[in-house]
């Protein structure tokens, strides 16, 4: 068997272990909180932010099961241990956003004609910003976690603060600059293209930040003694 095929087989095995054995179903249920985008007049970033809590709790669960230590005794490369964890983080973030989109569609029927009065409407801008927020969370959390391979309190806290900071900056800009408010903070009307650009930029930022986070974490974890 070629080395590449072997590597792919190992990555597949470690992913299965990561997604189904190391993370029981209840942790994925946190993603349902993405539906909070449907709540009228509510700071909908809260539902998205619960991802941090899901990750923090799942880390505690992993620690109590000595998951990383167990994985490192198996025939795997350390960089695959990191990649599988990154993929888990991406899966739970994307799941949350999928439910966020479902919530956003429901909000069409639930929201007042004035839209969300306490923050961004659940529109393309919001999801673009949410992607950026997750990217910022990942660049703080993933390399932070793999400094030790088991301590996640400070990395999650740093990631959450960074996530809220980015979101607060966007909210402030949208509320302070009237033109931004018109362009970015509405469900209907013109400027769909401008909002779509924010989404695309958000997705690109998310991909870049997550890939960089994974690389930094891989390098750090090579030196960690468990």
């Amino acid at each position, binding site marked *: *068997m070629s080395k590449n095929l*072997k590597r792919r087989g*190992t990555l*597949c095995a470690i992913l299965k272990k990561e997604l189904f054995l190391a993370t029981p179903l209840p942790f994925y249920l946190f993603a349902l909180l993405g539906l909070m985008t449907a709540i009228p007049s509510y700071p909908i970033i809260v539902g998205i932010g619960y991802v941090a809590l899901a990750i923090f709790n799942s880390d505690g669960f992993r620690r109590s*099961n000595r998951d990383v230590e167990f994985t490192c*005794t198996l*025939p795997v490369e350390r960089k695959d241990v990191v990649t599988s964890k990154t993929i888990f983080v991406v899966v739970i973030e994307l799941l949350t956003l999928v439910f966020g989109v479902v919530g956003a569609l429901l909000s069409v029927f639930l929201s007042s004609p004035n839209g969300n009065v306490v923050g961004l409407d659940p529109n393309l801008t919001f999801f673009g910003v949410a992607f950026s927020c997750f990217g910022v969370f990942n660049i703080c959390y993933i390399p932070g976690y793999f400094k030790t391979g088991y301590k996640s309190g400070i990395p999650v806290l740093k990631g959450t603060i960074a996530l809220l900071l980015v979101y607060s900056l966007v909210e402030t800009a949208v509320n302070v600059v009237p033109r931004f408010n018109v362009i970015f903070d509405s469900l209907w009307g013109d400027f769909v293209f401008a909002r779509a650009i924010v989404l695309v930029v958000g997705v690109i930022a998310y991909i870049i930040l997550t890939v960089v986070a994974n690389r930094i974490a891989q390098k750090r974890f090579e030196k*960690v*003694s*468990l």
Partner: protein
Amino acid sequence: MFEVENLTKKYDGFTLDGVSFKIERGYITGFIGANGAGKSTTLRSMLGVIKPDSGKVRAFGLDFEKNEQEIKNRIAFSSGAFDYYSHERADRVAKYYSNFFAKWDNEKYEHYKKVFSLDGKKKVRDFSAGMKVKFSLALALSHGAELFVFDEPTSGLDPIARDEMLTIFQDIVADGQKSVLYSTHITSDLDKCADYILFIHEGKIILDGTKEDIISEHTIVYGEKEQAATVKEKAIGIKENAYSFSALMKKSDAHSLSLTQEIPNLEDIMVYYSKGGKR
């Protein structure tokens, strides 16, 4: 089969200091040392769980650093009893574990479950300490491992379970193709089954050889307290009380002494080496 050369790892207050040894195919090697002597650090460093500061490991003719994945496919390592994913049923853990090994044989797994009387439907946390070790062994034996490395597998087991474990180790090496390396501080187990002994003390390997050679090279001498001065210089370790003394010595240093002598067991050797010149 497996070779460790100059393995070093520094911590605050402890150094694993240039550990070197070889494991021969077809034998059981007992790794002994007091608590904190460096047994677990050695085993975990040589398998990459802890990153050593320096040193080389070779297994099956391959360099460990460049072929970690290939080598770990042929090694079974267990740190104590199986204590991972305790909320899961054993069979489910085995299912995910099996994905990592090219040579996993499910029939063998079912066979060893029967041999060890393991109920795969039970959750890992519901296994007794002995069952957890057996589960670990069942997993290891089912993926065709050639070297079995166990860190304190018999600690906490009752004498019956320990004896059973030793029989299993002997069965593993019976075909002459597989080897067992296991750490313990229960030296009486090694008296029964080990072929080779590695003795680590304060991060250094101080004895490495066959059990028979190590025992036959040492002797315990007994005498009156006043006679202690005659052996103190060459004694490896000495115990004194108000009236008498006993000391572990190299046989070659003790043959001219007209004192009572006794063949030591591994526990004596470990205790006297650890004590040194102290009371």
